[in-house]
Structure formats: C-alpha cells, structure tokens
C-alpha cells in the first residue's frame, strides 16, 4: 500500500496532469512498439504454438495479430485527429487575431517583461526625422504612433511565425485524412504471372486471412529476366508486361524494382519472382547393372512417377544458376556458378522421403572434373543440403560404360587386381587410345563403385535438359490518398521550418523630449532563440547609433 502511495500515485498524478497531446503521442508511440515486437499477420496456428491457448486468446481478442488495424489503434488515431481538430479550432482564431493586432504603444509596467532594454540620448531633432530614419533600418517592419508628446515605434521580425503552428497541425490532419482515404478507397495486393501467362486477380492479406480482388484489366507477362552481378547476387529483375483492357492490348512496358508501371490509377510493381513451371528432363541411370538410361519429362510444381519402380519425384524448383562460394572456410571468397539444378522430393515404397537437388553439369574445380553431383537434404529443408559426389561424370556416356565394364571385370578378379581390371575396362571402352585424365578417371570410377552402390534408390536422377519459365511476382496498388499525403507532408515540413526557425522578435522605441535633446528607450522581446536575439538586439542598437548619427554627435553632447 505504501508502495502505491509513494511510487505509483505520484506517477499517476503526474500522468493525469500531463497535457493531453503529450499523453496521446506517448501512448501512440508505446502502442506502436507492440506491433514491431510481435510479428504481424502470421498464421493462427503459429501464434497458438508460440503463445499457448490462453495468451493466444488474450492477444487475439485485443487484435494484436493485426494491431495496426485493430479497433483500438484506429480509435487512437481517430482520437488524435479529433484532438488536432479541437486544438486548431481552439487556437487558430486567437493566433490570427494576435498576428493581425500589433500594439504600438508600450505600457510602463510592460518594461519589466522585456529581455533587453537600452537607453540613448539624442540631440534635439525633429521627431519626424527620427521616425523616418528609424523606419529605414532594414529587416524590421516598423509602425509608429504618437501620443502625449511621446513617439512610439514598433519593429517586428518574423511576426508570421504562428503560421508554423497552424501549418504543422493542419498538415498532420491532412496526412491522417490522406491515410484514411488510402485505406478506405485503395487496395494493394499481389499476383504471380508466369511467362506467357495472364492474370487479372490480386490477393492480399486482410487480418490474418487472404482475400482476392478482380482488376479491371488483365496483365500478361511476356518475358522475365534476371541480371546477376559477377558475385552471383541479383542485379536487376525485369518484367516485360502487356496490359490487356477489354480484350485490347493497351500498354506494353518493362518494369523493374523502383520503376513501376502506372495504368488507370493502378501502379504495378516488380515485387518478386519464382519458377513458373519450367519443363525439365531428367535422365534416370538405372543401377540394376543393365546400363539402361531412361528419360523422365517433368515440370516444376508437378510430380513425375517412375512406373517401373513406383518412385515419385515432386519437382519443387528449378534454378539455372547456382552460385556457390568455392573457397575453403577462412580463405578469401571465390564465387563460381555450378550450373543449372532441379529440386524435387523423392518418395517411394520403403524409402524415406528426401529432398534432392540434381545438377546438370559435372562439378568442376579449377578445370578438373570431379564427376556428377547431387545434393540431398534429409530434413527437406534447403539449408540442410549435403553434397553427394556420384563418381563418374554421367554426362559422358563413356564414363557410364566404363563404370559398368569395370564392375564386370573387377567382380571376376581377385583382391588387389582392381588396377588390372580398370586397365582392361578402359581398353574395352576407349580402345587403345588412353584418355588423358586416366588418373582422375580411375579415382572417379572407383568412387562410383562405392557411392552408387550406397544409394537406396534403383536409379540416379540427373538433370539433362530444361526449358525455363519464370513467374513474375507483381504488386498492384491503387492509392487515392497518396497525393493528399504528399500535400500534407509538404505543408508539415514547411510549417516545421517556420515553427522551429522563425522566432517572433519585437522591438519598441519610445522617444520623448527631455531637458536637453531627447530620450530614446529601446526594448526588445523574442519568443525563442534568445542567444541569437542578444546579438540581433545589439546589431540594431549599433545601426540606430549609425543612422541617428549618434557616434559623431554623441561626443559633442
């Protein structure tokens, strides 16, 4: 209880006494944090897993999974708009009036409020001459008034600074209205168009579900290209699109990231890409000793089933380039493209399903052929791919023959006779003319005996040819509030500059006759940037000295 009285209560009182605007800004700031920490718009099952049923329902009932569209967050923004409107309605008339009225005279009791006061003596001069000369001091807006033998002069600088306040607050209102218009009358969604295909429907995330919307036109993707840097990182994604409106081709244009296409109020952005159903041909090298090679024709996103063994291959992806870092760990990086590869999930009777990546080309290191390569991921996750060197270079039919010839000869030979068997096999396949890389060939063939026999499958699938098709991922958005937001933003920036950099500086000169000559009292007041005003006030005094001829005549007096 005492804890409450000592810590919480004062805090609470402090909170309660804080001006509404600040509380509102801070509450909005704190609320916004939640949405950045809690991943938004995920699957409900994931949330349930992550938080357990109790917290899941608590969070769900508060709309925290789509927080920026939750009723209470929208309510907060609405409240902010209301507060802004009230603030403007309350203050603007008063400010306009203040800016218009400039009181020239200065009451005696007001002198105490002044940040700067100064007194000068002038020789007897005509009052009108003094006024005229003072009014010539540049940079100040002067007004003069005469009363009871006294002349009042008032100079202003930056007297429109209150426009800063008005502009900033109304600009925020404009931005919020623009944002509301965007949400209310706009849309934003994605479509995937395969090369050569057409699409007219976008899908978008609403809350934690997905909805779709028909566009008033169709988009055809004629072509999609990726350019790569020498490092293998993508340099440019480019789609060639044709817009078809009511059966007619209206626009054909290229789009890249950062350069969208604009048609009928809709912007079309390059957002992503992927395989659009490439056709791939695989060679199945039978491992039953029959030397048979079958051809499997498949397509990405489809499943090919080998009727002979009952094994199915669900083809998931195809990539024409696979740039890998070839350097040993710790050494300077060395990137090399190891050629096209196809990914598929291999399932079969009595087999553990695995993900396989099969490369079209043999693996080459510094010009040395290391034989055909596949990668296998036991978990099915791309990060778990492990290289598996098959041994022979299967793109070369002679190596496949050699592998079998060696197998036959070696099975008949005694232990240690494998060198002889290999030589005989080479003679059988290549004739008398020995290939140049006979050493490597030997190693590869020997490796093949070990590795190919350890495979649980009745064949080795090796990518043979492909006809690549991409899909281009487009984002389509219509945003009728955007221009309103830009207007608001411009006003906001402009207003902020006025508000923060223009200070209202006022000076008064009160001139009255005294025994000998005249007495001039100068007073100055600024609403901010007092350090600069100190200097400015002194500059003004110096200028007054000059223009009124004080520096010369002052000595005579």
């Amino acid at each position, binding site marked *: 209880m005492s804890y409450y009285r000592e810590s919480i209560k004062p805090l609470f009182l402090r909170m309660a006494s804080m*001006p509404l*605007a*600040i509380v509102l*800004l*801070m509450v*909005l*700031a704190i609320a*916004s*944090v939640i*949405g*950045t*920490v809690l*991943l*938004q718009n995920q699957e409900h099952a994931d949330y349930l897993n992550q938080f357990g049923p109790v917290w899941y329902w608590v969070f769900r009932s508060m709309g925290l999974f789509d927080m*920026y569209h939750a009723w209470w967050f929208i309510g907060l923004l609405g409240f902010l708009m209301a507060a802004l409107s009230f603030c403007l309605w309350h203050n603007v008339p008063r400010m306009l009036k203040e800016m218009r009225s400039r009181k020239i005279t200065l009451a005696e009791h007001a002198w105490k409020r002044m940040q700067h006061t100064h007194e000068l003596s002038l020789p007897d001069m005509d009052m009108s001459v003094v006024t005229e000369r003072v009014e010539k001091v540049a940079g100040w807006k002067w007004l003069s008034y005469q009363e009871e033998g006294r002349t009042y002069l008032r100079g202003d600088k930056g007297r429109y600074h209150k426009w800063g306040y008005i502009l900033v607050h109304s600009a925020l209102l404009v931005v919020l209205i623009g*944002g509301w218009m*965007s949400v209310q009358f706009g849309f*934003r969604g994605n479509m995937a168009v395969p090369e050569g295909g057409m699409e007219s429907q976008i899908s978008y995330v609403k809350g934690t579900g997905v909805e779709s919307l028909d566009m008033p036109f169709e988009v055809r993707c004629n072509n999609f290209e990726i350019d790569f*840097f*020498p*490092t293998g*990182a*993508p*340099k*440019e*994604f480019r789609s060639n699109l044709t817009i078809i409106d009511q059966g007619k081709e209206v626009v054909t244009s290229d789009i*890249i*990231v*950062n*350069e*969208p296409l604009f048609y009928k109020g809709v*912007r079309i*952005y390059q*957002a992503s890409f992927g395989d659009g159903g490439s056709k791939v041909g695989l060679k199945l090298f039978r491992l039953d000793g029959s030397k048979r090679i079958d051809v499997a024709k498949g397509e990405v996103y489809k499943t090919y089933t080998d009727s002979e063994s009952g094994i199915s291959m669900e083809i998931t992806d195809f990539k024409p380039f696979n740039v890998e870092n070839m350097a040993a760990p710790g050494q*300077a*990086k*060395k990137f090399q493209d190891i050629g096209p590869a196809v990914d598929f999930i291999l399932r079969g009777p009595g087999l553990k399903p695995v993900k396989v990546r099969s490369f079209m080309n043999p693996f080459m290191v510094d010009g040395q052929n290391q034989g055909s390569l596949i990668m296998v991921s036991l978990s099915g996750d791309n990060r778990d791919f492990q290289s598996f060197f098959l041994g022979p270079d299967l793109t070369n039919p002679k190596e496949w023959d050699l592998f079998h010839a060696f197998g036959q000869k070696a099975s008949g030979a005694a232990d240690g006779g494998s060198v002889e068997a290999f030589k005989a096999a080479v003679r059988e396949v290549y004739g008398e003319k020995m290939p140049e890389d006979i050493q490597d060939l030997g190693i590869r063939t020997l490796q093949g005996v070990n590795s190919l026999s350890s495979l649980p499958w009745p064949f080795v699938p090796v990518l043979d040819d492909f006809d690549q098709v991409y899909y281009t991922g487009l*984002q*389509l*958005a219509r*945003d009728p509030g*955007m221009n309103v*937001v*830009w207007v608001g*933003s411009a006003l*906001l*920036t402009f207003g*902020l*500059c006025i*508000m*923060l*950099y223009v200070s209202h500086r006022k000076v008064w000169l009160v001139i009255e006759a005294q025994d000998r000559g005249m007495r001039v009292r100068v007073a100055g007041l600024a609403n*901010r*940037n*007092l*350090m600069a005003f100190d200097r400015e006030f002194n500059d003004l005094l110096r200028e007054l000295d000059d223009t009124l001829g004080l520096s010369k005549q002052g000595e005579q007096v």
Partner: protein
Amino acid sequence: MTAAVENSFFNGLYQGRVVHARFWLYVGLMTGASLLAIFGGNGYDENDYIYRLLSIQGVIWCGAGALVGAAASMFLGGKSLSKLVPWFDGLIVMALLMALFTLFEPHDALISYEDQANLVSGKIVMAMNLLFLFSAVCYIMYLFAPESFIGKMATMAAWAGVYAGGTSLLLRWYESYLFLGGDIGHAPVSNLYEVFILLFCITCSIYLAFESRYQARGMGAFVMVLVSAGVFFGIWLDSIGQADIKPLVPALQSYWMKIHVPLNFVGYGAFAVACAAGMAWLFRERLERRGSSPMLKVFPSLDQLDQLAYKAVAVGFPAFTLATILGAAWAAEAWGGYWSWDPKETWALIVWLFYGAYLHVRISHGWSGKTLAVWAVVGFLVTLFCFVGVNMYLSGLHSYGRLA
C-alpha cells in the same frame, strides 16, 4: 604577424561580397549539376551521371551554373544564407582530398572484390577512428585543464576526424568502381559500416558548429564519448567482415537512397548531440548540488545546455521528418505503398512521436530542466534502437541494413 595576416585573409573569405558571391556560386553549381542529372542523357543513371559529371559535359553544366550563380549574386542584394558557405567549402575540400588520395590507390592487381584490404579508404577510416578517440581523450582532459591548449587540440582533432571520415566515404564511392568492371559502384550509404562513418561526421560537425557559435566546448567530452563508442562498434563491424563493399540489392538501386539515407543521419546526428547536451546538463546539475567544483567553470550554464539540447532537436526534427517523408516517397515507388507498418517505419514513427512530444512540452508548455534533459537522453536511446536495434533484432523490409 603572418598569423594575423592569414587570419584576416580567412576572415575576409567569410565576409561581405566574397561570401555572398560564393554562396550563389555554390547554389548555381548545384543547380547546374541537378539540371545535368535531369536533362543530360536519357534519364538518370548513377554510373552514367557520375562519369558525365566528371566529363567535359559536367564541367560545362556545373561551370555555367556557377557562373550564372556568381553573376546573379550582383543583383540579389544582401540576400544569401552565408552561414551555409563554410559547409559547402568543407565539402569541396573533402572532394579535393579524395581526388588527392585516389593517386595513392594501389595497383589494379592488388585490388579485388574478394580482398579489399589494400584500399586506401580503409586506412583513412583508421586515421579517422584514431582522431576521434584522441579528440575524445582531449575533450575529457580539457574538463580538468580548461586553460591549456588541450581544448583547442580536441577541437582540431575532431575537425580533422570529420574531414578524414568525409574523405574516406567519398573515396569509398570511387573505390566501389575499381573492381568487377565497375559493375557494383554505388554511393557509400548502403550498409551499417558506411552509415556509421556518416553518422560520426554529421554528429561531430553539428556539435562543432554549436561549439564555435555558442562556446560550448565543455559539452565536447559527452559528444565525443558517444562518437567513440560508435567508433568501437565500427571497428568491430570491420573485424567481422562487414566493411566490404558489396553490390546493391535491386531495391536500393535508386537515387532516393542518396537523399533518404544522409538526411536521416542529419536527424540521428542531431539527436546524438541533443543527448550529449542532456547528459552534460545532468552532470552539471550533479556537480552543482555537490557544491562548487572547478569544473563548473568549464561547462556552459544549465540554461545554455538546455537551449543547446533544444537547438539540436530543432535541427534534427525537421531533417528527420523530411527524411521519413522522402522515405515514404521512395517506398511508394519501390514497395507499392508509402507506409507499410514495417518495423523500421514504425520505429521511425516512434522516434518522431517521442521528439514531437519533447517539442510540445518545451514549446507549448514551457517545461525545461531535468525532465527534458532526461528526455533527450532517452530519446537518443529510442533513436539508437530505431537505427541499429531494428536491423539487428527485428525483421522487415529494411532488412538489407542487417548484419549478414
């Protein structure tokens, strides 16, 4: 004697006609360069533009702009923002230094994408690190020995550091064209390491401007300690291989990057200075409560520190606002919408709301003193999270700022 002559010569450069004409000359030069970007060639292309700028065509456009500007200055009376001229001069000096250092680049055979250790810019960054650390030490010593020359040395080291940092960044820009056939060349504001250097330079120059204008050298220790912490972070980034020049992802290949990123760092840098002023305020207040201390003489008064913090926020807030708006404009061009509640965007909004509230309590409600000093410090922590924390801990569309 010569010193006095030099002094008057330098002062002369920043007075009257000379500075006035130079201001408009710079304005003309920049206008010429912008017009070249817009009308020269077929639309804007970074590599093309840079080569154009350095070619005869660039000399013609910029030179014509400068001449027109200088000529126009005669008809513009006293209207110029002469306070900006030293900043332009500084940039020109940096560009000249950069041009000088390109002569020291090693032979092509020693430079490759895979091994960037031989590049000169890395060595200049190291010099910058040392200068900033040295300056921080001097500023701290200055608090104990205000009469000695050490204060001047601190200021000079900080200035030298700013020039080293700026030059190294410009040099990095040039160096990014040296390998892989110039294919990956881009402005040096694309990863954490580069923007950290930018942040040091901007923070220091804002502080140094304040120092020379308001005699606030006592605050330097706090600014430079912040910068030093950043320097160590930068060294760490370098040590884990994050300092390499890498190709830009397609989303970043836009002229917006060169506007949005530096402007954001004007905001961040100014908030860092405000934070330092806040810390100095709290420190001085503690000293005052403890009674008299010789150090009190060195520090600006509480009131001045309060004003300085506000001034820094007043520089940073509009810059940050504009940077966020331009970021939104870029998002509208690259991501399909000006606002996506991406973590970085949301944190930028949080920072904006935080300082917006700061300005409210200060301007409309006249608060000052301890609360605002603490506010400025906390505000910078929020800013830091927005800058580094979001990249390290949260995912989102700004994820290319991540540590890879």
